[in-house]
């Protein structure tokens, strides 16, 4: 038993490690291509970002070019880049001049706070509603969650956020529309992201509950005289859990993308916000750093999902 678990553990970690490496290389290459493709003189843009548009002249742009080594041949820059990346150095922001690692560390807390609040909200809403729908298919909870999930898929995060902002904050004035640091600022972003995720969560839970409840082994458990509660506890929960966790892992991509959108929408100073600003200013080291961090976060969450699945069902997935 223990050997199987360790084997499974090693396989999961190995697969995900390779994935993290491939994705890092992919991001680095894309960012390198990005540097090469930039239209116009990058030095001018960076100088404008630093000193303001009115204070840019050729001398300032030349100074920037010298400082950042923008005149080197492309392959040298790329080799340098990969070398730095391999050493865990993400370079310096082209706009602020600060180390990317520090800037990102500064933003990470806010992102994690938002993500945690949204996931808590999604689970708090989605789990009970999904359970109720799965146990009584066709009942009011089922219809409600079906309607909500269709509506929420037609209302993507930024539209939902926009509507919540216009409704709750502009029309009613209950909560601040955007910002960070005051009470109630977290409410709108977390509500936007959490609501979007909860619709999907509820449907996933509903489908796996229904599959288990309609299965032969579950009916047999009831037939042999177990109370409904006991049957659910002994035979239902684990089997539901493994499907829900596995499927939720696939949907984590919505969380990462949602963080980017919702943060920019509500001026929440997290990594997604930083990324959009970096794209705006073409701050390539910062784009690379933020993208890498979000991608690693995604891989890490997926790894945790895999491990959780393995813990619930030590046999591992049926087919590789």
């Amino acid at each position, binding site marked *: 038993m223990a050997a199987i678990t360790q084997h499974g553990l090693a396989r999961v970690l190995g697969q995900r490690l*390779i*994935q*993290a490496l*491939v*994705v890092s*290389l*992919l*991001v680095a290459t*894309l*960012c390198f*291509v*990005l540097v090469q*493709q*930039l*239209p116009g003189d990058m030095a001018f843009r960076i100088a404008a970002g630093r000193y303001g548009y009115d204070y840019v002249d050729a001398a300032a742009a030349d100074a920037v070019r010298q400082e950042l080594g923008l005149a080197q041949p492309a392959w040298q820059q790329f080799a340098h880049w990969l070398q730095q990346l391999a050493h865990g150095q993400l370079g310096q922001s082209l706009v602020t001049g600060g180390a990317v690692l520090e800037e990102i560390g500064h933003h990470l807390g806010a992102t994690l706070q938002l993500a945690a609040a949204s996931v808590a909200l999604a689970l708090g809403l989605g789990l009970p509603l999904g359970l109720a729908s799965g146990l009584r*298919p*066709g009942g009011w909870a*089922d219809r409600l969650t*079906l309607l909500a999930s*269709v*509506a929420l*898929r*037609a*209302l*993507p*995060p*930024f*539209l939902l956020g*926009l*509507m919540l902002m*216009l409704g709750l904050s*502009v029309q009613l004035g209950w909560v601040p529309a955007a910002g960070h640091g005051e009470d109630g600022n977290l409410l709108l972003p977390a509500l936007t992201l959490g609501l979007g995720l909860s619709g999907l969560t509820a*449907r*996933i839970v509903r*489908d*796996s509950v229904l*599959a288990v409840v309609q299965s032969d082994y579950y009916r047999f458990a009831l037939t042999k005289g177990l109370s409904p509660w006991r049957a659910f506890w002994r035979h239902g929960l684990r089997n539901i859990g493994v*499907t829900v966790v596995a*499927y939720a892992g696939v949907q984590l*991509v919505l969380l*990462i*993308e949602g963080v*980017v*959108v919702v943060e*920019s*929408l509500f001026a929440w100073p997290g990594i997604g916000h930083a*990324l*959009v600003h*970096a*794209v*705006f200013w*073409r701050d*390539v080291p910062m*784009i690379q750093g933020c*993208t890498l961090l*979000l*991608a690693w976060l*995604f*891989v890490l969450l*997926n790894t945790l999902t895999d491990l959780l699945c393995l813990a619930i069902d030590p046999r591992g997935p049926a087919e590789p």
Partner: protein
Amino acid sequence: MTYLALLPWHRRLAWLLLGLIVLLAVAGPWLWPDPARQDLMQFLASPSLAEPLGRDQLGRSVMARVASATRLSLGLAALCVLSAALLGGLLGVLSAWRGGLTDTVLRGVADGVLALPGLLIVLIFSAMAKGGFITLYLGLALAQWVEYFRMTRARSRLVLASPHVEASRLLGFGPGYIVRRHLWPELSPMLLTMASFGMATAILALSTLGYVGVGLQPPAAELGLMMTEALPHYSEAPRLVLAPVAVLALTLAALVLLRPLEVKR
């Protein structure tokens, strides 16, 4: 199951909505030709018979802008989905057919791309040429091909290993015949379902980027961008925000309703 009775109803609604939106995209720019023409004397003019949605803060026809933005969104999304499905589908079949090293390499690349949430890929690409139509298209298509690749590969492997295909091969039929007669009928329904989902994703990504200011740039008429531009004038003319919001929500709703409502699992 329970909702089977509802299926025709919501499908019909979806096709109706989609038809109206395509009509807007095709006929709209013809009826209201120029989305960029400003008439500053008439800024924020109320709706009239000639201009059903009035004019915006620069006196541009909102109807013309909405129609042109819809055409842009649908066109770009269709282009992305076609390219992604073609690329992903071909590579998927290739991977299943060749196996071995080809399969390993392609799967490695696909796993890497899959670990990068699609929006991030599109964001990196949108930084390459801000406001560039081509780069946005490339980014969206590259973010989407993996889905088609994985599904096509998984399904093709099953089909190619089946006795039918073996029989065809033994009878001497070539790859072209096997693809046409065995693979395509198996793959096409799945690809169509995925395409409606991919359209929604692409339309959404385009407007999201426009909304946060890193997608297409003004003066392009684009749904997300229109919302951002009109937001400061929300109190005077909420219709400027609501028109693109409504078009986007209805388009996405139609694409969602096209698919079966039950999540099959």
